[in-house]
C-alpha cells in the first residue's frame, strides 16, 4: 500500500532530524496533551487503499477519467477496440497501466457515454436520415460507374464545373435536412414567425437545387453562402428571441447593439461546435447525461484532457495524511474488514 507524506522543504533545510533523537531517543518530551499529538490528528488511511490495485486497470482508468458512464461500459469500450494506450490499440480491459502511460478513447464513444440519451423521435429521424444517406450513396456510386467512361473523354474544365455542381447539390441537400430538422425539433418548437422564415428558406433552397445545372460555379457559391447565412441567422435569432421573450418583453431596441451582435456571433460559434445531428447515437445538441454532476470527479493520479478525450496515468494511487486517492463509497471500517478478509487471511 503506497503512501506519501508531504514534506516542507524549509523544515528539511532547518532541521537535520537530530531533534527526534534528543531526550530519550524519541524527541524532547512534551506535556501529554492528547489534542496536540500530530500522528493522531493526521492518520494515513491505509485501509482505504485495499482496492488500489484495481484502479490500475485500463477500464477503471477510462471510467475514472469520465470517458464512460460506468466501469462496465468502460470495459466494453476497451474490448471493442475504442481505446488506445500510447497510440496502440489495447483490447484488454485488465491491462495494468504503468506510470506515464497515455490512453485515448474514441471521441464519439465518449460523447455517447456521457451525453443525454436520444428521445424516440430523434432515433426515428436518425434512422430516416441514415436510410436517405445510404440511398444517396448508392445512387452516386451507380452514377459514377456510368459516367466514368464519359469523364475520361471530357475536357478538364467541363469536369470541374460538373464536380462543383454535384458538390453544391449535396450541400443544398444537407442544408435542407438541417432546415427540416429544426422545423421538427420537439425540444424547442419553432414559433409561428420562425416557421414562416423556415418555410421561405426551404422554398429558396428547393428553387436553388432545381436550377443547379444552369448556373456557373461562382453564382452557386454565392447562393450557398447566402442561404447558409440565412439559416444561421434564423436559428440564432430563435434562441435570442426565446430568451428575450422570457426576460424582458417590453424592452425591444430596434437596432442590434454591438453586444447583441457579439452575443449572436457567440451563439453561432457555439452552435457550430455543437450542431443538431440526428445521425449521432446521442441526443444533439450534446448535453451531459442526467445525474452526471453528482459523481463527476477526477482522482489525482490521472491527468485528463477532455478536449481530446485523452488522459495520462501519472502514478499509482497513494494515501496521504487524512486522504486516500482511491474513490470508494465505503468508510474505513468496511475497508478494514475487506483488508482482513481478502489480504490478511491469504
Amino acid at each position, binding site marked *: 500500500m503506497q503512501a506519501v507524506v508531504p514534506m516542507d522543504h524549509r523544515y528539511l533545510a532547518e532541521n537535520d532530524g537530530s531533534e527526534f533523537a534528543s531526550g530519550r531517543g524519541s524527541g524532547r518530551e512534551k506535556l501529554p496533551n492528547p489534542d496536540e499529538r500530530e500522528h493522531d490528528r493526521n492518520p494515513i488511511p491505509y485501509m*482505504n487503499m485495499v482496492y488500489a490495485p484495481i484502479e490500475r486497470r485500463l477500464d477503471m482508468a477510462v471510467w475514472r477519467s469520465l470517458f464512460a458512464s460506468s466501469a462496465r461500459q468502460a470495459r466494453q469500450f476497451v474490448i471493442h477496440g475504442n481505446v488506445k494506450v500510447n497510440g496502440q490499440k489495447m483490447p484488454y480491459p485488465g491491462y495494468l497501466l504503468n506510470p506515464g502511460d497515455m490512453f485515448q478513447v474514441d471521441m464519439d464513444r465518449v460523447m455517447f457515454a456521457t451525453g443525454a440519451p436520444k428521445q424516440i423521435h*430523434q432515433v426515428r429521424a436518425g434512422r430516416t436520415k441514415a436510410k436517405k444517406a445510404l440511398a444517396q450513396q448508392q445512387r452516386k456510386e451507380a452514377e459514377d460507374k456510368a459516367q466514368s467512361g464519359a469523364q475520361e473523354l471530357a475536357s478538364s474544365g467541363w469536369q470541374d464545373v460538373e464536380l462543383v455542381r454535384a458538390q453544391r447539390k449535396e450541400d443544398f441537400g444537407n442544408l435542407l435536412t438541417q432546415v427540416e430538422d429544426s422545423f421538427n425539433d420537439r425540444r424547442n418548437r419553432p414559433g409561428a414567425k420562425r416557421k414562416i422564415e423556415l418555410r421561405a428558406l426551404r422554398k429558396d433552397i428547393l428553387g436553388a437545387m432545381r436550377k443547379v445545372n444552369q448556373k456557373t460555379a461562382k453564382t452557386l457559391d454565392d447562393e450557398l453562402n447566402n442561404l447558409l447565412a440565412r439559416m444561421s441567422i434564423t436559428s440564432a435569432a430563435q434562441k435570442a428571441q426565446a430568451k428575450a421573450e422570457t426576460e424582458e418583453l417590453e424592452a425591444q431596441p430596434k437596432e442590434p447593439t454591438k453586444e447583441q451582435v457579439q452575443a449572436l456571433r457567440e451563439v453561432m460559434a457555439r452552435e457550430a461546435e455543437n450542431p443538431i445531428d440526428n445521425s449521432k447515437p446521442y441526443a444533439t445538441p450534446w448535453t451531459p447525461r442526467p445525474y452526471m454532476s453528482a459523481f463527476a470527479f477526477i482522482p489525482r493520479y490521472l491527468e485528463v484532457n477532455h478536449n481530446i478525450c485523452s488522459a495520462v496515468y501519472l502514478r499509482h494511487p497513494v494515501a496521504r495524511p487524512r486522504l486516500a486517492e482511491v474513490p470508494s463509497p465505503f468508510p474505513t471500517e468496511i475497508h478494514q474488514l475487506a483488508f482482513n478478509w481478502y489480504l490478511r487471511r491469504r
Partner: protein
Amino acid sequence: MTPPLRCHSVICSLSYTGQFFRTAQSRSFSITSQRDQRVTRARRALFRWLQTNGVNFLQPLEGSTNYLSAYNAQGQLRRVVEREEEAKKAKTGEKGQKSVERDPNARDKIPHERPADLRVFPQNPTFLSQPVLSEEFREVIWKRIMEEGESVRDVSAALKVEMGRVGAVVRLKEIEKEWQRILMFNIKGKPLARPYAQAVMSMLPKTAYDADPRKLKTHESINDLPVHAATGPQIFYPTSESRHFTRVDAAKVFDDTLLPADDRVPHPELSLMHKDFRAGKSRQEINEKQRERDEKAAKDKARIAARRAKKLAAVKKVQSPRWEFRFTDVNVDDIGKDGRGAKGVGWRYGVPLMDRSRAQVKIPTRVE
C-alpha cells in the same frame, strides 16, 4: 435575494418519470437478475427520493460542483443556508459588522465550496474530489515549457504542480494543438470535444491560475516523500547519548541502501537553496550554485543516455523485407541449473512451459 433553493418538495408529475421510458432502448449493463430487480420498499424509496431531493442532481449546478454532501436532509445547499443564518445574525446582533454586505452581487452567487462540500461519498470522509487544473492554467504551463523553454523542475516549483503532471499537461496540450492545426488546414480533421470538455470542467472543482505568485493557490504538495517499505517496522536502535543522530543515520539503520528523506523527495534542490539562504548567501550566489547542480544533473543524464545508446548500437541488426532481425550474444548458462532462470534464453528440452499454468499474465504488461 438568495438563489432559489433547488428543492422541490412537491412531487413531480408523471411526465418526469415518463422520461425513463421515452428514452431509446439501449443495452443494459446490469448483471442483477430480474428477480432482484422487483419492486421493493428500498426501490420505491429510491424513486421517491429521485423525485424530491434527487432533483438537485439531475442537472449540473451552474458555476459550482454538485455533490451529495453539499446538501442537507431537506435538500438545501448547506453553504447557502449557513450564509443566510450568518446574514440574519449580523442584521439582528452587531450592526457594526459590515463585512457580510460588502458585495451586493455576491449574494446572488452560490458561495465557494468548503472541503466538506467536495466529499463525493458522504460515508467516506477520506476521499475528496480534489481540484483539477483549469484550462488557463494548463495553457500557461504549456507556454512556459514549450515557448519560454523553462525546465519542468522550475515550472513545477514555481506553480506548485507535480513534475509528472507538468509533463503530462504538456504532452496532452501538444496533441490538442496538433489536432487544431490539422483542423485549420483540413476540414476532415477531428474537431475537439469542446461541449463535452466545457460541461465536465463546469462540474469539477478547479485550481485557477493567477499571474501574481503570492495569490496563486497551491494545486498540490510537490515535495511528497514516499513511505518506503523498509521504514515500516519499528526498530529499537541503542546508540550513545552524545551522538548527533541525524536523518542520514536513521535511514542507514532502516536499510543500508535507503537514502535520507532530503534526497528522496522530488525537489531536493528546494531545501538546499533554502539552506544557502539561511546561511546568508546572496541570491546570485544561490542561483549560481543551483545552475551548477543543474549542469551536473544534465551531464549525468547525458552520460546515461550515451551508455544506453552505445548498448543499443552494439546490437547487430539485419533488415529483411518483413522483419528487422536483432542479434545479441547470450550465455547458455544464464538459464541456471533448474532451467527456469529469468535471464535465460529459449526453451530447454524437458522443462515444461509455464504459460498454461495458473496466475501467468498473458496480456501485454507494457506498451512502448
